[in-house]
């Protein structure tokens, strides 16, 4: 609509209206009442006709005795409504913008033919959804084209994935695996494309980074949603792909973000704990492709097809630096009375001084490639029935042949390569999805009964494979070569040879201080896996319109999902060898296999399992509107999930997930221009299958110790095939003493039992309370605000009642886990917004969010160490670590401001330009004082109350978009866009090191404040005995504590060229 108004104003055919196809996914509604302008009485039997370029044919309804009409099942788009009745002047209202999932009210006054008085009929279509309490934003191509969105880099950055748009919503922010909404974590969101879920069945994150080029409209629902949406405790990202139309239209596009000199200078993260350094810089990333849509049979059969390859290339520069020590005049190391060299430290930062070892720099390529495609057919059987079938695919490959992989789950590039330079870039990450969907929408009984049904198959691959073609379980090639971890104190000169390295590393103690190489990896790829995931979905929804004391929209539906997670996994060479800290022995540290009896070991080269789950649910809801003024939304959703382990037997059931949703909306003026609303909702989680793969049954693994030395497990040859063959014989096995009570003297482990489950386990849920108001100030300008509170119901986690000895799955604080604290995650937020949708050549959005996120439960991953193990995180595992855990959670940000604005200019009939600017400002996140645990390692013990150690600084970001459109033919337009992200190259600190110490410690009791904490107040734990062993000392503190570990992404420029016809 706005586009056409622009046309009239400038005469220019603007790309936006043509470049995207139309959506067959039809779930939006126009309602309203027709009254006579003369006496304001309702007019019955008015024929209301809706037309739109996005609509096949037209939709016709007739007003009832109260003058009410309702046009359901409309695809989002720009509409024209015509009202016809004998004895009234025909009336047409164009330019009604209808967004995805929205109900808008268009009330009309009709003039009688005989009526002579001039009446000023207001022809301004409202944009407020008066039927819904849901919060969030709707992002369409008007916005995407004029504002710099889809920042390069990060998850799905090169492909410009639709899910990254979610960060535009108030209350949303980026997290490690996507976008966090209202204090939840990204795996808790529901990702829906054309009515079918694209959540990763194993981890819950979005598995399909579908390009925005294929997407017509994205509705980011942050809360207040009705029972038809379920199986999510976060937000819902509902995307609709493009469809064809009655005319042939298409685009050819390309976007590139160059690196090098085009990138802003990156602030360098300093870390003194390792002599191996890593520096990542962008080489280039981009995407290009084409789409085409049009009719096969006019008004009957439309098609849409697209292809969009994308790529990311980074340079990783690996380097070795030596730590400087005190030397005498001849350059010889000066040792103190303990025979130790003295490290030279920077007076200002306290960090060790370092110096690059010449010739040690080596550049690696880190790269990923993807080829996205989609195809869609939409068939209109008749005015009341249509079907569509679509196929989308997002295959990607990353790394191998010397190139490093980019993590497909996070978009992260490896930070440091601590190991043999030749042992990196030897695996490929394969991540891809294929989705096939069939959709039917039908209307019966004069559009009073509507039926929508979807059937879909979502297939996903997730593999890490050796690049030489060998596969998990193979005994040859890279799959047959074990990874080896060196842990005894050594100089890096032991592994790597550069000119003069022995002299440079000479510190009097064998280079173990100046050039210390601990946890150095060599050999094969280590853990490799081949994963196939499937999600079979079927859902059907019926809508019935009923007039009974007002108008009712009754909806009911059923929804079945069959999830499957197959994984074949192996440790290359069948085992990962780890040296003991003293160097006296080597452990078979990771090895699949089982023990039939004492010392009767059966090693396995691989393990494979298929875990599955079945979720069945349904809902019933009513939206009851009385006198166009009050709407009551009430409904309930029911789900049950059965989870089956790798042995095909039932692991556990999460039944009776009864989610009530109740909302009230008041439209005080009954004209669709204002609403005040309140809503309560309970949401339930669909448990991802990773938990089954890990614990039902548990992985069968055993360990052994082997003698180190020449002729046995020889450190000099352990990384080679020959060295490993020599090591892995029965002769090298070290037996434990016969006085040990373990019947096996050569092996430990080898068990394979399921994790016990609390028989009264409850499904995981979250409650939401919402209160808000919205008012249409001017045409297309909405002012609004809301308050939202979210808290947790039951939470599913694994726990240990005996401090890490036995584990079970249950609900902390409930059932027999009653002595565990109840998981809490309380999110309170106030949002204020002012939105102006694109019209008259400009748009503006502004919102401010105040929020507080407090509790002891972060969600489905642990932000402190990015552990993504939904429902089996380490948070509630150990009773000894539960103290001080409740506090401000890592994604607590008190203030968040988002401002977006764009304006279009016309220079001539054929030339237009647009400028978009956006500002995002966030206050910092809380800092915690964290220590290690003897079993679990670093980042586990909260020494003082979580989040009470101050905050990271405020982060500001300003982005711009400049676009120029030139018309070269009747409907052919060339556009050039330049997106500049972080124009001023702000290098704000986005994360700091929260490890107060890497030593194992106990939390300090008694509510000590950060400012009062001294190392002497903290009990240190001996890692071997697990007993308290004195107090922490200054020397145990992490010199990098509170120092930056991450800065804002630098300035990046994306250039885009597009031809639209």
């Amino acid at each position: 609509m706005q586009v056409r108004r622009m046309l009239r104003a400038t005469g220019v055919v603007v790309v936006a209206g043509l470049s995207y196809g139309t959506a067959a996914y039809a779930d939006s509604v126009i309602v309203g009442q027709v009254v006579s302008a003369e006496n304001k009485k309702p007019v019955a039997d008015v024929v209301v006709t809706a037309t739109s370029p996005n609509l096949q044919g037209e939709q016709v309804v007739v007003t009832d005795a109260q003058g009410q009409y309702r046009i359901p099942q409309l695809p989002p788009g720009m509409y024209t409504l015509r009202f016809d009745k004998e004895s009234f002047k025909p009336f047409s209202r164009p330019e009604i913008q209808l967004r995805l999932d929205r109900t808008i009210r268009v009330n009309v006054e009709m003039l009688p033919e005989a009526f002579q008085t001039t009446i000023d009929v207001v022809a301004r279509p409202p944009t407020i959804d008066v039927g819904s309490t849901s919060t969030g934003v709707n992002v369409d191509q008007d916005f995407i084209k004029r504002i710099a969105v889809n920042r390069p880099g990060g998850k799905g950055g090169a492909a410009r994935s639709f899910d990254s748009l979610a960060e535009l919503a108030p209350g949303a922010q980026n997290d490690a695996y996507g976008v966090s909404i209202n204090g939840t974590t990204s795996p808790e969101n529901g990702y829906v494309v054309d009515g079918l879920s694209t959540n990763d069945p194993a981890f819950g994150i979005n598995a399909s980074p579908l390009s925005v080029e294929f997407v017509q409209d994205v509705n980011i629902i942050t809360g207040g949603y009705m029972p038809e949406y379920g199986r999510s405790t976060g937000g819902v990202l509902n995307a609709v792909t493009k469809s064809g139309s009655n005319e042939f239209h298409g685009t050819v596009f390309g976007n590139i973000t160059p690196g090098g000199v085009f990138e802003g200078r990156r602030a360098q993260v300093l870390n003194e704990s390792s002599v191996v350094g890593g520096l990542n810089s962008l080489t280039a990333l981009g995407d290009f492709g084409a789409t085409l849509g049009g009719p096969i049979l006019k008004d009957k059969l439309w098609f849409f097809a697209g292809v969009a390859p994308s790529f990311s290339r980074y340079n990783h520069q690996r380097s070795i630096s030596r730590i400087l020590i005190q030397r005498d005049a001849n350059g010889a190391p000066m040792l103190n009375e303990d025979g130790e060299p003295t490290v030279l430290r920077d007076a200002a930062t306290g960090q060790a001084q370092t110096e690059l070892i010449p010739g040690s720099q080596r550049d690696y390529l880190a790269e990923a490639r993807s080829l996205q495609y989609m195809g869609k057919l939409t068939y209109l059987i008749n005015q009341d029935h249509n079907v569509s079938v679509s196929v989308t695919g997002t295959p990607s490959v990353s790394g191998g042949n010397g190139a490093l992989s980019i993590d497909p789950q996070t978009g992260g590039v490896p930070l440091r390569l601590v190991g043999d330079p030749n042992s990196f870039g030897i695996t490929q990450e394969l991540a891809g999805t294929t989705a096939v969907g069939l959709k039917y929408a039908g209307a019966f009984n004069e559009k009073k009964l509507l039926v929508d049904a979807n059937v879909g198959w979502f297939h996903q691959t997730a593999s890490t494979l050796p690049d030489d073609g060998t596969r998990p379980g193979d005994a040859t090639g890279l799959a047959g070569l074990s990874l080896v971890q060196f842990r005894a104190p050594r100089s890096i000169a032991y592994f790597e040879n550069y000119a003069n390295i022995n002299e440079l590393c000479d510190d009097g103690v064998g280079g173990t201080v100046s050039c210390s190489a601990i946890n150095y990896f060599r050999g094969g790829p280590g853990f490799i896996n081949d994963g196939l995931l499937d999600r079979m979905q079927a859902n059907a929804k019926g809508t019935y319109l009923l007039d009974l004391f007002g108008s009712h929209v009754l909806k009911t539906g059923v929804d079945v999902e069959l999830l499957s997670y197959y994984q074949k996994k192996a440790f290359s060479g069948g085992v990962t060898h780890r040296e003991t800290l003293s160097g006296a022995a080597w452990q078979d540290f990771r090895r699949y296999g089982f023990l039939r009896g004492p010392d009767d070991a059966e090693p396995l080269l691989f393990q494979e399992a298929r875990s599955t789950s079945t979720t069945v649910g349904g809902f019933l809801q009513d939206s009851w509107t009385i006198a166009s003024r009050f709407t009551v939304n009430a409904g309930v959703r029911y789900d049950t999930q059965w989870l089956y382990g790798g042995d095909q037997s039932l692991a556990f059931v999460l039944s009776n997930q009864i989610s009530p949703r109740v909302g009230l909306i008041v439209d005080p003026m009954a004209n669709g221009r204002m609403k005040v609303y309140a809503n309560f909702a309970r949401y339930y989680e669909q448990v991802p299958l990773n938990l089954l793969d890990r614990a039902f049954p548990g992985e069968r693994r055993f360990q052994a110790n082997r003698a180190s030395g020449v002729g046995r497990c020889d450190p000099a040859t352990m990384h080679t095939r020959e060295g490993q063959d020599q090591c892995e014989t029965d002769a090298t096995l070290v037996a434990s003493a016969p006085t040990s009570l373990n019947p096996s003297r050569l092996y430990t482990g080898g068990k394979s039992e399921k994790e016990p489950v609390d028989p009264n386990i409850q499904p995981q849920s979250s409650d939401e309370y919402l209160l808000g108001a919205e008012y249409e100030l001017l045409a297309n300008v909405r002012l609004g605000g809301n308050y939202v509170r979210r808290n947790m119901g039951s939470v599913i986690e694994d726990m240990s009642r005996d401090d890490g000895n036995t584990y079970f799955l249950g609900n902390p604080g409930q059932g027999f886990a009653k002595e565990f604290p109840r998981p809490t995650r309380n999110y309170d937020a106030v949002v204020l917004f002012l939105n102006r949708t694109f019209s008259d050549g400009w748009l503006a959005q502004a919102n401010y969010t105040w929020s507080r996120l407090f509790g002891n439960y972060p969600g489905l991953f642990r932000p402190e160490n990015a552990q993504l193990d939904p429902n089996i995180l380490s948070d509630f595992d150990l009773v000894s670590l539960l103290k001080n855990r409740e506090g401000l959670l890592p994604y607590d940000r008190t203030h968040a401001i988002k401002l977006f604005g764009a304006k279009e200019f016309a220079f001539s009939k054929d030339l237009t330009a647009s400028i978009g600017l956006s500002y995002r400002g966030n206050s910092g996140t809380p800092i915690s004082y964290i220590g290690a645990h003897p079993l679990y390692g670093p980042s586990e013990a909260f020494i003082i109350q979580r989040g009470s150690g101050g905050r990271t600084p405020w982060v500001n970001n300003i982005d711009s978009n400049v676009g120029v459109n030139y018309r070269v033919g009747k409907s052919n337009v060339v556009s050039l866009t330049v997106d500049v992200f972080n124009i001023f190259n702000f290098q704000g600190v986005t994360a700091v090191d929260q490890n107060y110490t890497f030593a194992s410690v106990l939390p300090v009791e008694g509510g000590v404040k950060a400012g009062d904490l001294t190392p002497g107040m903290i009990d240190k734990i001996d890692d071997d005995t697990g007993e308290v062993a004195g107090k922490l000392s200054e020397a145990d503190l992490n010199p990098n504590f509170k120092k930056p570990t991450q800065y804002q992404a630098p300035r990046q420029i994306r250039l885009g060229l597009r031809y639209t016809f």
Partner: protein
Amino acid sequence: MTKRIATTVAVLGAASIISGCAIEQPSAGCFVQDSSFALWQAKYIPKTEADAAKACGQLKGEELGVWKYSNPEASAADVAANRAARLAIRPRGLASLTRTSYKYKEVDPATGKEVEKSRTVDRVTQDKWDDATALSTTLPPEPDSEGYCKATGFAPAALTVETVTNHVTGATVAPAASVTYQFNDDVEVFSAPSAPGTQLRGSLTYTSGACTAEYEVWALWPSVGCVPGSTEPAESCGVGSGLNPDFDAVCDADLEACVPAKRPGSFKAQ
């Protein structure tokens, strides 16, 4: 797959009845807790007064190594006969017989000074090391209706060792011994999600030389020390001791270790 479809169909029917579907969780099977760094603690109770009066009837209890072994590749016939898994018990009283060490003094030829040294003596050959372990022939996959998993067919665990004397002084370091543990067919591990394989009960025929006594065995996991008479929960088998807080456990004054307060299942009244 057919199971899943069948379930789906069954549930589509059931889902229409929204309220009050009581769905039972499946069993986790016979779980036995074992780990190298935490052992079991047994309390032995002589079965009769006559047993208690014997020289070999004086055992109060000891640490046990209790391990479950299972063969995931077992045949269906073995599974049906409860032979896919076995229980192994390695008592401290036997394992400690396998090796001993003593200290002695010797003149260092280099310095001419007398220094203290220690010597370790293997009392049995390596092929006898496994004789200190009692291994059952059966262990069921699922607990019985009470939650117990009964292991049967234990072979006797027995060692015979000679006297060890200090090679310098000639003093006896460890006397000769011939000890047999015969666990009877009533050894049961309690296995429930709330206490996954962490209590065991049964009986034992213990023979030392010519003396034989019968004991009741009550055991729990993990073995934790305690301070007799203490009221501090962490020191007296309560919360913080490392035991399951539901256990009804007491501090045994003889063993200075936590043991079941009553015949397992020894749980506090809820």
